[in-house]
C-alpha cells in the first residue's frame, strides 16, 4: 500500500522523519517495501489554460491547442484524448525541464505543425504511473501559476506491506493509529460536519437487503444537485500519490475516503437506478451485467449483486456497473457504504479474475462500525467539494450488529510464551495503547474489550502477539542454547542416506541436483510416451517443468550432455533424490533413487590416460562403481543378469536382483539417446534404490583372525570359447577347490593375435592358504590339477603350460 507521508501526518502529530516512521512501522509488523520521493522539481512548469482545440490536419490522434501560459498564447500539439478547451493542465513551455532536469522542452514540429511546449500527464511529472491522459487541474487555478505551488512541496511515499491479518491497516487512519500507539500521541480523526437538508433520505431511496449473510450492513445516503468537476488538486495529488487515478470529484471523494479510513464506498447515479431502489441479493442464474471496465460479466447464483428494480447495477464490493456510473450530467448521487462477506467477495473476485482496491479490502474484512462514519465523511465532502445537498438521515440496514468481543489475557502465560519478564502493568498498558479497553483484572489475567476494527484479535495468543510487537522483539532476550535429546526420535534412514552421499563423494563422484519437474519429451525419449504412472501438472508454469520425474536417469544423461556441450570431456556425477509415480489405486508413491553417470576417462586431462572410450570400458567403470558400493555392504546378497531396457545399449547393461526385487540397473546409454545431446562417446549410468543401498548389509562388523601362515599363489591361463563367461569360470574353479582356496582374481583377458578365431585367453591368479600350517608345493599343485581338469572337461579350455 502506498502511503504519502504528509497525508498520514494529518491524523497523527509527530515530527519523525519518513525513515524513522518506516523503521517504527517495520518493527511493528508493517514492513517497508520501498520509499519514493516525488516532485519538487517542476522547474518552469506552470498551469496552462487551453483556450481552443482544433483537429490536427495530418493526424487523427493529435490535436492542435491554443494554450495560455499566463503571459502568452502559444500553439501546442497534443496527443492526449482528454484535452478540452477551457481545461487547465500542467504546461511545460519551451525551456522547461522535465524528469528532474534531464529532459529539456524544445520547439518541435509534429506532423508538420509547430508545437511550443507540452501539456503533461501525471506520469510525465513523475507523480504517478498514470499516463492515460493529461493531469486535469482544478479550474480555480489561474493560468501561469507555477506547478510547484499547485503540487506543493516534495512528497515521500512509503510502500508498505500490510499482512493479511491486518485489514485495519489498509488506510491512512489505520497506519496513523499504529503510529499514534507507538509514539503515545492521540489519533486525530477528521471532523465530519454534516449539513443536512430537511428532505428525508427515505423520500428519495429505498434499500432492501435480501441476503443478510452476504451483506451484514448496508447504508445509503442521497446527495442531490451535485456539480461534477475535477476534484481539487490537493485531493487529486493525494490519490495519484497513492496510485489511484483522479476521475471527477464524486468518484475521487469515494476513493479518497476509502484510502483515508479503509472503507470502500460506491456512488451511484440515482437517476439511473430504476425506482431509486437498491436491492442486495444473489444474482439469478443467467443474469449478466456490464461492469465499469466495459466488460460483460456472466453472473452465477452465488454472486452477490446490488440491483435496482430491473436488474444488477453493481458487483457488490468489487466493481460498479457501467449502467449506473457517475456521468458528466449526474445530478443526484446514492452513496453506498456497506459491509460484504469476505468469503463471498473473494470467491467472486477470484472467479472473475477481478481484483480491485474495493474487493481487496472487503476480502480481508472491513470494520462494520466504520460503515456509517465513512458514509458521513463522504457525504460531507460531497457537500463541500461538489456543492451537494445532503438528504436528512441515512438508510442503515444492520440487522445483527456483532457483540462487543472480550478476550482474556493471562500475564504469566504472556511472559512464559515470550520468555520475557514483562510486568503486569506493562502488558495492560501496551494493550490499552492499541485501543483495547481493560474491563476486569483478577486472578493474574485481564479481560479486555476489543475495538471493532481489530477483527483479528479473537484469542489470548492474538493479544500476546500484540504485546510482543509493542514491547519490541529486540527487547526479548535470547535464551541460552540447550541441547535437548529426544530419545524416541530416530532418523536412521536419513543418516544412512547421508552416509551414502558421503560414500559417493569419497568414490570421487560429483553430486548434482536437478529439478524434480521435467518436460514430457525428456521422459518420452527414455521411456516412451506410454509410460505408466506419470504425474503431470494440470497447469504447469512452463512446459519444461510439467511432469514429476519418474526416474533420475534422463536428467543424469542430460547433465552429462550439457557438460559435454560445454567442452567438458570427463565427468563422474551422482544424484540422490525422489521419483514419483501414480499407483493403480490413485495413490502416489515417492521413492528415493541413487543415480550415477560417467563420461570420458577419469582424470581426462592427465597425460597417462589417452585411451579411447569404449562401450566395454564404460560398462566396466559403472559396474566397478556398483561393485564398490556392494563391497561396502557385505550383508547385501545380489545376482547380476542382463538388462534389456531400451534406453541402454543392447548387451551393455545389467540389472541387480536382491531379495526378489531389482535394486539397481546400470549400463551404457543407447546411442540413439546419446545422439540427442551429441554425446559421441559412450556414457554409462547407474540407477539404484537408494534406501536399499543405504540400509542394507550394515550389520556390526565382526573381527576375523588375520592369517598367521603364508599363502601360495598359482597362476592359471587358458584359452576358452568366446562366449564363456568369467562368472562360469569362477564357479568351476570354486566348485573344484578345497576350502584352502582363498581368492581367485582375473588378471588378463585377451583375444586377437596368436589366439584362434572365436576364442580368448583368460588368466587367473589363485591364492591358497591353510589355517594351521604352511601348504606344500605338492598340495597346491594337486589343488590346481583338479581345477585344470574340471576346466578342460566342462569348458573345453586349453590350459596353457606354465
Amino acid at each position, binding site marked *: 500500500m502506498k502511503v504519502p507521508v504528509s497525508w498520514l501526518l494529518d491524523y497523527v502529530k509527530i515530527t519523525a522523519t519518513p525513515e524513522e516512521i518506516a523503521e517504527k512501522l517495520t*518493527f511493528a509488523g508493517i514492513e517497508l517495501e520501498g520509499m519514493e520521493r516525488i516532485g519538487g522539481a517542476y522547474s518552469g512548469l506552470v498551469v496552462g489554460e487551453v483556450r481552443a482545440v482544433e483537429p490536427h490536419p495530418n493526424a487523427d490522434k493529435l490535436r492542435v491547442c491554443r494554450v495560455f501560459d499566463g503571459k502568452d498564447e502559444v500553439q501546442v500539439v497534443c496527443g492526449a484524448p482528454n484535452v478540452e478547451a477551457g481545461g487547465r493542465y500542467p504546461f511545460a513551455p519551451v525551456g522547461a525541464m522535465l524528469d528532474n532536469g534531464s529532459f529539456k522542452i524544445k520547439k518541435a514540429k509534429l506532423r508538420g505543425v509547430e508545437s511550443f511546449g507540452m501539456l503533461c500527464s501525471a506520469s510525465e511529472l513523475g507523480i504517478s504511473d498514470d499516463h492515460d491522459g493529461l493531469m486535469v487541474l482544478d479550474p480555480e487555478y489561474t493560468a501561469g501559476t507555477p506547478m510547484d505551488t499547485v503540487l506543493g512541496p516534495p512528497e515521500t511515499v512509503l510502500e508498505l506491506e500490510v499482512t493479511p491479518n491486518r485489514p485495519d491497516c489498509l488506510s491512512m487512519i489505520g497506519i496513523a493509529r499504529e503510529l499514534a500507539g507507538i509514539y503515545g500521541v492521540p489519533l486525530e480523526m477528521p471532523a465530519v460536519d454534516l449539513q443536512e437538508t430537511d428532505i428525508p433520505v427515505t423520500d428519495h431511496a429505498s434499500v432492501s437487503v435480501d441476503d443478510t449473510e452476504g451483506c451484514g450492513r448496508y447504508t445509503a445516503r442521497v446527495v442531490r444537485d451535485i456539480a461534477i468537476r475535477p476534484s481539487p488538486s490537493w485531493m487529486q495529488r493525494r490519490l495519484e500519490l497513492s496510485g489511484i487515478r483522479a476521475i471527477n470529484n464524486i468518484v475521487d471523494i469515494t476513493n479518497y475516503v476509502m484510502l483515508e479510513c479503509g472503507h470502500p464506498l460506491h456512488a451511484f447515479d440515482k437517476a439511473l437506478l430504476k425506482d431509486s431502489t437498491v436491492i442486495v441479493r444473489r444474482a439469478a442464474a443467467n443474469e449478466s451485467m456490464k461492469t465499469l471496465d466495459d466488460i460483460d460479466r456472466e453472473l452465477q447464483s452465488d454472486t452477490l449483486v446490488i440491483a435496482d428494480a430491473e436488474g444488477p447495477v453493481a458487483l457488490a464490493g468489487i466493481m460498479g456497473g457501467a449502467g449506473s456510473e457517475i456521468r458528466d450530467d449526474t445530478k443526484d448521487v446514492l452513496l453506498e457504504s456497506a459491509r460484504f462477506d469476505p468469503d463471498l467477495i473473494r470467491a467472486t473476485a477470484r472467479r472473475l479474475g477481478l481484483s480491485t482496491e474495493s474487493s481487496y479490502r472487503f476480502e480481508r474484512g472491513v470494520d462494520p462500525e466504520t460503515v456509517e462514519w465513512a458514509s458521513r465523511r463522504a457525504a460531507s465532502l460531497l457537500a463541500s467539494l461538489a456543492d451537494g445537498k445532503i438528504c436528512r438521515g441515512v438508510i442503515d440496514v444492520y440487522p445483527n450488529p456483532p457483540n462487543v468481543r472480550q478476550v482474556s489475557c493471562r500475564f504469566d502465560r504472556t511472559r512464559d510464551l515470550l520468555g520475557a519478564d514483562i510486568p503486569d502493568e506493562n502488558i495492560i498498558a501496551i494493550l490499552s495503547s492499541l485501543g483495547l479497553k481493560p474491563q476486569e483484572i483478577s486472578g493474574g489475567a485481564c479481560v479486555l474489550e476489543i475495538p471493532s476494527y481489530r477483527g483479528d484479535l479473537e484469542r489470548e495468543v492474538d493479544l500476546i502477539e500484540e504485546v510482543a*510487537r509493542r514491547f519490541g522483539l529486540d527487547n526479548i532476550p*535470547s*535464551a541460552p542454547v540447550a541441547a*535437548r535429546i529426544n530419545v524416541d526420535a530416530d532418523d536412521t534412514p536419513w543418516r544412512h542416506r547421508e552416509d551414502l552421499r558421503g560414500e559417493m563423494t569419497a568414490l570421487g563422484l560429483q553430486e548434482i541436483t536437478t529439478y524434480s519437474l521435467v518436460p514430457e519429451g525428456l521422459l518420452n525419449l527414455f521411456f516412451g510416451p506410454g509410460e505408466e504412472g506419470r*504425474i503431470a501438472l494440470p497447469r504447469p508454469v512452463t512446459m519444461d517443468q510439467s511432469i514429476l520425474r519418474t526416474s533420475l536417469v534422463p536428467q543424469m544423461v542430460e547433465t552429462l550432455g550439457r557438460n559435454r556441450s*560445454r567442452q567438458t570431456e570427463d565427468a563422474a*556425477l551422482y544424484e540422490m533424490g525422489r521419483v514419483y509415480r501414480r499407483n493403480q489405486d490413485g495413490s*502416489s508413491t515417492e521413492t528415493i533413487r541413487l543415480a550415477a553417470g560417467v563420461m570420458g576417462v577419469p582424470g581426462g586431462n592427465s597425460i597417462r590416460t589417452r585411451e579411447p572410450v569404449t562401450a566395454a570400458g564404460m560398462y566396466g567403470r559403472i559396474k566397478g562403481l556398483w561393485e564398490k558400493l556392494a563391497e561396502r555392504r557385505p550383508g547385501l546378497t545380489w545376482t547380476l543378469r542382463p538388462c534389456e531396457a531400451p534406453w541402454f545399449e543392447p548387451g551393455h547393461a545389467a540389472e541387480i536382483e536382491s531379495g526378489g526385487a531389482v535394486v539397481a540397473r546400470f549400463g551404457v546409454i543407447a546411442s540413439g539417446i546419446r545422439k540427442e545431446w551429441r554425446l559421441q562417446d559412450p556414457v554409462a549410468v547407474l540407477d539404484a534404490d537408494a534406501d536399499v543401498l543405504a540400509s542394507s548389509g550394515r550389520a556390526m562388523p565382526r573381527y576375523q583372525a588375520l592369517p598367521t601362515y603364508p599363502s601360495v599363489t598359482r597362476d592359471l591361463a587358458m584359452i576358452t570359447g568366446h562366449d564363456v563367461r568369467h562368472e562360469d569360470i569362477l564357479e568351476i574353479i570354486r566348485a573344484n577347490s578345497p576350502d584352502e582356496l582363498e581368492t581367485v582374481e582375473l588378471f588378463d583377458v585377451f583375444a586377437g593375435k596368436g589366439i584362434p578365431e572365436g576364442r580368448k585367453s583368460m588368466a587367473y591368479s589363485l591364492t591358497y592358504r591353510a589355517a594351521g600350517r604352511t601348504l606344500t608345493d605338492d598340495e597346491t599343485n594337486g589343488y590346481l590339477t583338479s581345477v585344470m581338469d574340471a576346466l578342460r572337461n566342462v569348458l573345453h579350455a586349453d590350459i596353457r603350460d606354465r
Partner: protein
Amino acid sequence: MNIQDIEQEKQQALAGIAAAADEKAVEELRIRYLGRNGLLQDIMKGIKDVPNDQKKEYGQRANSFKTEVLDAVNARKETLAAAGGQTGAGIDLTLPGAWPSLGTRHPISALIDRAVGIFRSIGFTVAEGPDIEDAFHNFDALNTPESHPSRNPADTFYLEDGTLLRTHTSPVQIRYMETHKPPVRIIAPGRCYRRDTPDATHSASFHQLEGLYVAENVSLAELKGDMEFFVRRLMGREDIRIRLRPHFFPFTEPSVEVDYSCHVCGGEGCRVCKHSGWIEIGGAGMVDPNVFKAVGYDPEKVTGYAFGMGVERMAMILYGIPDIRLLYENDVRFLRQFR
C-alpha cells in the same frame, strides 16, 4: 700427505658426492676415494711418514675421512634411489598426478547437511514428508483458511485428484506431530513447489529447511537463542546477532521474520547485505494453538516454536551465487567450486 691435506681432500670428496647426478657417478667417486687403489689407501700408506707425535691424530683423521665419505656415498645413493633411480636429472616432479577424480557435494545438499548437523548437535532429529501433499496437511491443519492467498491455484500446484505439491515443508510438522507425542524436536529439509515463473531468483521448485520444537514451556526467547546459535555456527562467526521483525504466518503466533547481522561486514553494511547490515534468513514463530488442536495436542500443556528457511536463498547469499538456475544446471566447472 699431512693432516691438512686429508681435511682438504675430505671436503672435496663430500662436495663431489653431494653433487653427483646419478648412482653411477656416486660409484665412480666411491672407487676413487675408498676403492682398492683409492685415496684412502694412499692416506693409510702415508702414516709411516708421519712424525710419531702426530701419528695418533693422523690416524683419527684418516678414520673420519673413511666414515664420512662412506656415509656420504650411501646417503647420496639413497636419495637418488628415492628419486626414482633415474638417470640424468631424475623425474619431473611437477607432472600432473594420477588420482582419478575428486568428489564434491552439491551446494544445496551440502548446506542442508551442514545445517542439519548444527541442529543435531542440540538434539534435533531429521523428519521427512512427501512432496505430494493433501490440502489438510499443507493448509488446513496449519491454520490456513480457505481464504488465504497461498491457497490460490495461481500460487499452488494442484494435481488433478485434488492433492497438491507442498508449498512449504511445514506439513512435515503436522505429519510428525500426528504420529509422535510431545516433546518434539525435529528438523525437516525438503523440496517445495510454488507457481513462480523461473528467473534469477525464483524457481518453481526449491528447498526449505523446517524446524519444530514442542515441549512444555517453550518460549520465543528460546527461538531467538537457538536461531542465534545456528547462524553463528553456520557462518562461523560468534559475533553475529539476531533480529526479529513481526510478521504474519497463519500457523504461528507471534510470527516473526528472522534477520542476522551480515556475516561479511559484521553489520557495517556491504554489498552482500545491500548496505543494510542485516540479512533475512527465514520466517519463524510460536506454533499457533490451532495447529496443536489439529494434531490433538493440548495448547495449554505444550508450546513450541517453528521456523522455515529457504536453502537456495541461503546458498546464494553464502556463496555469492547470482542466479538460482546455476544451482540446477550442474555444470561441473560450477560444482568443482564447492569442495
